[in-house]
């Protein structure tokens, strides 16, 4: 039992959890409406999309790679599906998801091809595809924003859907959005893959020691291909959630928010070298970043401080983990 407790505390995620608790207490003392159910429901709804993107980014990081093109894939999926729905007149949210996810998988497959078959460095490749995908979307599909009036109803309805509803004192209601369900579904599915399939273990293995993974007989090419397609798939889901949330689609959106997602994943304990991290940690990171984003004003800082904070968080959290790593390396005289 003692060992189990010790093991729980050796994970960095537990510290993040405590930091979040402390932070929430501080925020609640400044503004008591923070710790209300309504606020929490709202937090979940608005950060679910980021959470899904973060899960995808985390899986890539776990395998020792990096993918910055997920934002372009998300907006591409969103914009294309909205336009198709508008053009064909079909008003079906399931079709929207289908189109968006298909676009996502296709674009992810391009990443997968370049990385697993041509063995190109992941950061530079995905920087290239980020630009290529977004540029292609704007150049070939269009740049016109879709406002609320033009948007097919299915999106608007979907955004409003709640799992259950509660009533306030004055008779108005609020609820826990279905977004929570979708996020939960993505989290569970990803967790199952990572923990209970050979594919998932292969992802861990590649991130832990690529050469050993090759020697052990893992299908490196196949696994990597899957990873990038999966990220695309998740980005496709997020794209539809995003458009339903805003009730508006502008193809210039989403791209540019990569840093926040990366900050969340890195904060959650995943290492850039691969092999380490957890979905829980990633989710905690998302929670932390979301709380920060929404409550900067409460802390007396205007929203202009957001970018600075994100950058600072990344620097501090990677510094801590990297420095620990470095000390360990020095002690064992391995010169990296």
């Amino acid at each position, binding site marked *: 039992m003692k060992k189990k407790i010790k093991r729980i505390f050796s994970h960095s995620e537990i510290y993040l959890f405590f930091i979040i608790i402390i932070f929430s207490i501080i925020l609640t003392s400044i503004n008591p409406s923070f710790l209300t159910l309504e606020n929490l429901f709202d937090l979940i709804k608005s950060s679910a999309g980021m959470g899904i993107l973060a899960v995808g980014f985390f899986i890539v990081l776990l395998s020792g790679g*990096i993918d910055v093109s997920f934002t372009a894939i998300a907006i591409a999926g969103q914009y294309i599906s909205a336009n198709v729905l508008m053009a064909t007149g079909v008003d079906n949210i399931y079709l929207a998801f289908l189109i968006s996810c298909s676009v996502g998988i296709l674009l992810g497959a391009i990443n997968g091809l*370049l990385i697993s078959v*041509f*063995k*190109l*460095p992941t*950061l*530079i*490749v995905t*920087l*290239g*595809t*980020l*630009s*290529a*995908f*977004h*540029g*292609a*979307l*704007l*150049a*070939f599909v269009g*740049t016109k924003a879709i406002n609320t009036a033009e948007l097919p109803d299915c999106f608007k309805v979907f955004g409003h859907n709640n799992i259950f509803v509660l009533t306030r004192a004055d008779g108005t209601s609020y609820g826990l959005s279905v977004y929570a369900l979708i996020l939960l579904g993505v989290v569970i599915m990803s967790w199952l893959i990572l923990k209970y399939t050979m594919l998932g273990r292969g992802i861990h293995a590649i991130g832990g020691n690529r050469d050993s993974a090759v020697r052990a007989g893992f299908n490196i090419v196949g696994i990597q291909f899957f990873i990038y397609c999966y990220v695309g798939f998740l980005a496709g889901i997020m794209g539809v959630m995003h458009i339903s949330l805003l009730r508006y689609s502008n193809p210039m959106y989403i791209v540019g928010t990569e*840093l926040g997602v*990366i*900050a969340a994943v*890195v904060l959650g304990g995943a290492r*850039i*070298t691969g092999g380490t991290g957890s979905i829980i940690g990633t989710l905690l990171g998302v929670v932390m970043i979301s709380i920060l984003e929404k409550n900067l004003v409460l802390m007396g800082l*205007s929203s*202009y*401080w*957001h*970018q*600075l*904070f*994100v*950058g*600072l968080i*990344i*620097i501090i959290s*990677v*510094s801590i983990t*990297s*420095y620990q*790593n*470095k000390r360990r*390396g020095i002690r064992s005289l391995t*010169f*990296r």
Partner: protein
Amino acid sequence: MLGKYSKTIVLFTIMVGIIIIMSIFIPDKFLTVINFQSMASQIPEFGLLALAMMIAMMTGGIDLSVVSITNLTGVIAAVILTKLVSPQMGEGLITLIIILAILVAIISSLVCGLLSGVLIAYVGVPPILATLGTMGLFLGIAIVITEGHGITGFPDKFLFIGSGTIWIIPVPFIIFIVCALIVALVLNKTSLGLSIQMLGSNPVASWFAGISNNSILVKTYMISGLLAGISSVIMISRVNSMRPGYGYAYLLTAILVIVLGGVNPSGGFGTITGVVVGVIILQLLQSGFNILAFSPFFKKFIWGFMLLLVMVINFIIAKYQQRSRKLKIHP
């Protein structure tokens, strides 16, 4: 067997080829003094960023924060130029303030590079993450200072840097060429430069050969920051304004250009000449696209696509070379 210059020669040929093609198909708009001047004035901002990125890559790292450094130092300089200058001031005082602004910009760019360098060398943060973080931090500071707004209205004398010409050559171009020459000199003929190349080739052997890896890395990112700082001065002078968020398209194209120019992303190899030719090729294409009225989005697509294409081609060439090397040993 021409070694590291064979790639440059290929690039040079491509560059000449593009010039010829453009001269044939769009001569009336392409072969004008105005066009060449315009190209020559846009190359420097971007070219300096490419050089900045290249130096970092030579050590096997990357500097994603270069554009944020230009943003931050540009904002700082812009603030000095607008807040400290009032119309009643005499010529001499204005010139002094301009020099102060440039100096402060340069110094802050060095400080930015120092931060990245320290994180990478002494704390042991991988370059991708360190510069990702500093990228956000520097941009963030710039946004906080300006509260998201732009700053405009710089003294006329300052605008000479960006828009003036000496004879018919634009001032920025001269600055760029001078910087490129100096960087080439440093890289090829100083002990720092050689140490950078060797460190990029094999950081472990570098420790064992008595090279101070940490100090070399810090210096590398400081040089990177410095070049970004110089670029920002040119940039704000050319457009007579500064708004945070400007120039992020350059990040990708800078990487494209240096990969095109023959720099090896894993470190140790690359030539300034290759990068400069790459920059020129990109500018030629950029101008050509402008003349053909391509949308900026289409260009965005093309740059991304070209980066991928160049890397795939490099991969195929490397595979081919490996195969022919094997054949030589086992005929």
